[in-house]
């Protein structure tokens, strides 16, 4: 591509992003770019590939797949809320076998870095999905969606209990290829998210996705009943961004070396930068895809400009930068036109 009109939509920035090193990593998963899609907001990438070249971003985190095909919850499944939305899809999906045959095969052939999100109602279901994925081609990493109810424990959500969360991560670790990074996706609906983070890391998680939606509810004032058929739903979008930035910050403080994939209401490059400064090694864009299907690539390009404007030569220099003890401790100065020393 000579004259860089990257992306197929007009909002994908039509200028060359600045020459800065955008490579990053989540543990041993190398990422060419730091922006990925968020699970459940991009299906398996195919639909978005119509709007921008999906291989131009860091990767696709697929919609959580379960062992068997699943019809999900009745409608209404969605409600728009101020700067966000509630969803209650109920993990509708084709099941892991069909996912491997169709979706994963397409992503693999397309050359996309693919983080496969998995969900289960029991530790055993997580184990069996992991076994199925073990021999599949094209799995760059596994994201474990532990924000699902445990059918064997009164539908208590795994993510809210350090022991239950650890059991799931142990099971996935044990049944997956040892080289495959396992990323645990944490729920903010807990008293102390660092406690869960430390538990799943001890259980073998090689990274953390921070964070999932937070539980919300809307009452329809005409019917005077809950608006969603599922009664409650996950709140996402810019409304929850400050909560997500706080969670990334707290976990980075507690676990200085753990790879973090940050997400929650990222709408532009500056929002993405907040997550990186708070400690995220890479970020995911979710709900804003519904607002703008070219959002992931647009945000990635905006992030490159935002980093450049602040004198960073690479995205890695900016990771956790907001945690620095004193401004004198670093050589970074806000002179973007001059080369900064190392």
């Amino acid at each position: 591509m000579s004259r860089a009109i990257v992306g197929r939509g007009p909002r994908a920035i039509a200028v060359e992003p600045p020459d800065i090193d955008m490579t990053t990593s989540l543990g041993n998963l190398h990422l060419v770019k730091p922006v990925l899609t968020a699970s459940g907001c991009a299906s398996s990438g195919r639909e978005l590939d119509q709007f921008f070249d999906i291989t131009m971003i860091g990767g696709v985190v697929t919609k959580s797949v379960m062992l068997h095909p699943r019809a999900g919850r009745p409608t209404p499944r969605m409600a728009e809320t101020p700067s966000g939305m509630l969803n209650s899809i109920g993990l509708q999906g084709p099941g892991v076998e069909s996912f491997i045959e169709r979706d994963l095969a397409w992503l693999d052939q397309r050359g996309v870095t693919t983080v496969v999100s998995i969900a289960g109602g029991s530790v055993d279901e997580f184990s069996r999905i992991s076994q199925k994925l073990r021999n599949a081609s094209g799995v760059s990493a596994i994201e474990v969606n532990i924000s699902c109810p445990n059918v064997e424990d009164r539908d208590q959500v795994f993510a809210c209990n350090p022991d239950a969360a650890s059991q799931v991560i142990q099971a996935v670790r044990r049944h997956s290829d040892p080289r495959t990074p396992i990323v645990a996706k944490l729920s903010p609906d807990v008293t102390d998210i660092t406690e869960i983070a430390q538990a799943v890391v001890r259980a073998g998680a090689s990274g953390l996705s921070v964070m999932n939606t937070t539980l919300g509810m809307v009452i329809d004032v005409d019917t005077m009943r809950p608006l969603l058929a599922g009664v409650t739903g996950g709140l996402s979008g810019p409304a929850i961004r400050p909560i997500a930035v706080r969670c990334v910050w707290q976990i980075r403080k507690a676990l200085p070396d753990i790879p973090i994939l940050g997400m929650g209401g990222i709408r532009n490059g500056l929002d993405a930068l907040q997550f990186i400064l708070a400690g995220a090694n890479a970020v995911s864009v979710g709900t804003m895809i519904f607002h703008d299907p070219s959002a992931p690539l647009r945000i990635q390009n905006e992030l490159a400009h935002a980093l450049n404007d602040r004198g960073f030569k690479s995205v890695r220099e900016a990771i956790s930068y907001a945690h620095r003890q004193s401004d004198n401790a670093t050589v970074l100065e806000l002179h973007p036109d001059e080369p900064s020393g190392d």
Partner: protein
Amino acid sequence: MPLQVKGEILDVRRVGAYSVLSVTAPGLPERTRPGHFVTIGIGGEESSMVLRRAFAIHNVQERGVYGGSLDIVVGVHGAGTRWLSERRRHDPIDIVGPLGRPFVLPKERVSCVLVGGGYGSAPLFLLADQLRERGCRADVILGASSEDKLFGVLEIKRVCSTLTITTEDGSQGLRGRVTDILGESIEKFDAAVVYACGPMGMLASVAKIATEHRAYSQCSVEESMACGIGVCMTCVLPVVGDDGVTRMVRSCIDGPVFRGDRVRWADIGTIPEDTLGASAGGSA
């Protein structure tokens, strides 16, 4: 393949209870077939309304100084549609389209009855035009609760074979509903296909009546959507496939136009027990 374009408002005009927006949308008109829809971003880039709104494409202008434009019909139901109806000439607008599966057109010169409820008549103009071009009859029935809720009565006369109006309060045309006269219209014009767009209840009745009169039906559904491009899974409804299996399918990319006899109208808003994956539960 759909496009995302930055368009511009050319004109906003009131038509009865609705607003018709003409917007520049380079590249979209030549891709549009009757039944396609577009989604529009609401409130600008810093909007607190994060979900796009979906609208059937009412009309297209392929050429002209604007490099192509299209018309949509907006009924104000809430803050998002109110924002859209308040746009003015030259305001920028973010459009994605054309989206969805359009109406399937008959290969032979058969008679067709087109049924529109309220502003559900919007996509029927392009459809009637193309049916007539193919030598098909296009007999139109438009209905609404009252006269001001009808859309396009005068304009559609230019493209249809005959027009019949029904209003529930009798303020224009026959008193009653479109479905009261659909059966006799199918018989009278010996229609092979019924096309319909409007509220779910109307579509359910249209599909049933069409089947009873041995006509094929094509219904464009209106389910609430978050993304319009197939990634969010919110706009699903139970539809029977060619293999006889019921699946929860997305109205944005598997529809919005469905065969009327394949949609399980009475089960919309539920997961029927025999749906693929229903036994896995929906409790998570």
